[in-house]
């Protein structure tokens, strides 16, 4: 229980820190009013807006007001779209979630078996081949692999739609592009975790009571190796949401990533701010969730709680 409490406290500190950082970044340019006015506004309009938005108050007062608004879940009004920011962003979240889910599926589906195989067949040609594959995945710029896939599967073979969000098929290429880097870190992490477990005495003991090597891995090694892998799985969800900024732009996928870039172009900075806050909150909650998941997998912790 005390462990859980300190985790919660850490998460709260991180949330507070993120809010603070974002607040000050928004004011880095000197006058945040300029970020929010539509192009072509006159000096009087700007001054009026500055007053309405309270940017003429002292910084600390603004900071307090900002925290209060967020505490009331009031994310502000978009001056470009004349609608509440929360609604604009919320509309796009399901698309990004679908994309991140697809990417996670790709990353887990390929990364875990690859990492496991690299550990079990250590020192063989299979390990070397997979290591090359993993390294390539880690070094691939997502926008390049995205474009190549569009060119090959979309244009040349004509198997998959090159952009848009009409059906499940259009989710395939963005998911693969987004999932590649995450797949690599899963594979690396799984390999290390499984290697660690394979050297333990209970593996030899399992074989000594007549289990095959495969059975020892299935029944004992995998569950033990899952513990460290779960943490990074949770952290990777945050990275996937961030990576969506690029992948969604390449594939014209209407999620929050594309929205962020569009909003920068249309100078709708409250939307960008909200997206950054949202992704960071997801990241922090996933972190917390990973800590809780430990308890489910590991009976040693379950009992402490």
């Amino acid at each position, binding site marked *: 229980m005390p462990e859980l409490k300190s985790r919660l406290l850490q998460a709260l500190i991180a949330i507070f820190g993120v809010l603070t*950082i974002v607040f000050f970044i928004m004011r880095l*340019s000197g006058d945040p009013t300029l970020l929010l006015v539509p192009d072509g506004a006159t000096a009087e309009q700007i001054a009026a807006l500055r007053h309405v938005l309270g940017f003429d108050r002292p910084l600390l007062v603004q900071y307090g007001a900002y925290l209060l608004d967020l505490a009331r879940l009031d994310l502000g009004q978009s001056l470009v779209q004349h609608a509440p920011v929360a609604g604009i962003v919320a509309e796009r979240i399901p698309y990004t979630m679908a994309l991140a889910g697809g990417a996670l599926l790709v990353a887990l589906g390929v990364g875990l078996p690859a990492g496991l195989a690299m550990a079990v067949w250590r020192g063989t040609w299979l390990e070397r081949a997979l290591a090359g594959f993993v*390294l390539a995945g880690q070094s691939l710029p*997502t*926008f390049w692999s995205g*474009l190549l896939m569009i060119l090959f599967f979309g244009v040349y073979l004509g198997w998959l739609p090159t952009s848009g969000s009409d059906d499940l098929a259009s989710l395939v290429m963005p998911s693969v592009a987004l999932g590649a880097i995450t797949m690599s870190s899963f594979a690396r992490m799984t390999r290390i975790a499984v290697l660690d477990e394979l050297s333990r005495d209970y593996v030899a003991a399992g074989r000594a009571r007549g289990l095959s090597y495969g059975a020892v891995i299935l029944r004992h090694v995998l569950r033990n190796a899952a513990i460290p892998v779960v943490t990074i799985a949770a952290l990777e969800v945050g990275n996937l949401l961030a990576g969506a900024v690029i992948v969604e*732009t390449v594939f014209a996928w209407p999620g929050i990533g594309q929205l962020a870039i569009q909003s*920068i172009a249309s100078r709708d900075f409250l939307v960008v701010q909200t997206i950054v806050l949202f*992704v*960071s909150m997801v990241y922090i909650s996933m972190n917390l969730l990973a800590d809780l998941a430990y308890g489910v997998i590991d009976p040693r912790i379950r009992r402490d709680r």
Partner: protein
Amino acid sequence: MRRISLGTALIFAGLLAFIVAAIGADVFASNDPLRQSLLLRLRPPGTATATAYFPLGTDDLGRDLLARILYGARASLMVAALSVSVSLLVGVTLGLMAGWFGGWVSIVAMRAVDTMLSIPAILLAVLTVAVLGPGFFNLVLVLGLTRWPRYTRVAYAQTLQVAALPYVRAAEMAGCGPGRILLRHVLPNIAGPLMVVATSEFGLMILFEASLSFLGLGIQPPYPSWGSIMSAGRQYVVRAWWLTAFPGACLFGVVLCVNLFGDWLRDRVDPRSQGR
């Protein structure tokens, strides 16, 4: 003396090629990367005219792709090197101080690290560049000032260990000030692990620069960057594959070499991690 394998030699060759191309861009490029020629738009690789030769073809404004890729390498190298230097400086200073002074200094520093790591790097960079406006200088500043936490973590952990070593304690007794001890005794001891982190960050920075430029938030036109070349080439991906293929392959190759170099370096710095 360790023998260097063929694979390692290839990694070094790849990195060397990147650095030489970046530094000597003006020597190797036979055409001006900014010079447009609307009559020579989207010409395929190997196009030759009476006065010029375009080994990798031309872009949508008729500029020489090879020249743009060479100058793009320069942008990439400069952004990555400078921003790694900035974040190294910030991160290591913070980590050394946190490890040496402990107490509330370390608490504040490590909470700040956690917080920075809670905002996915690319989003943080996108937001900041968008607020400050794009451009070379802002790009370096933003990447440098957002990517320091990993150095702080490593420097902090290593400083804690090194500070407990007898000879460091002895130097402290002999009256050396903290600045001197940190610089003369602690820093050399933690240089290895820091180099490993810096290498992997270097690869990431190259990717970030390209990504931000691809999104239009990095190097601004008409100046070339691998990311912005591909961003322009995106519309012509069917008609002019070379605009996407060549800069992307360069980017992939360089990042691959940097990552391989990082693995190699880590095995040397920490032999226990061999093959991990």
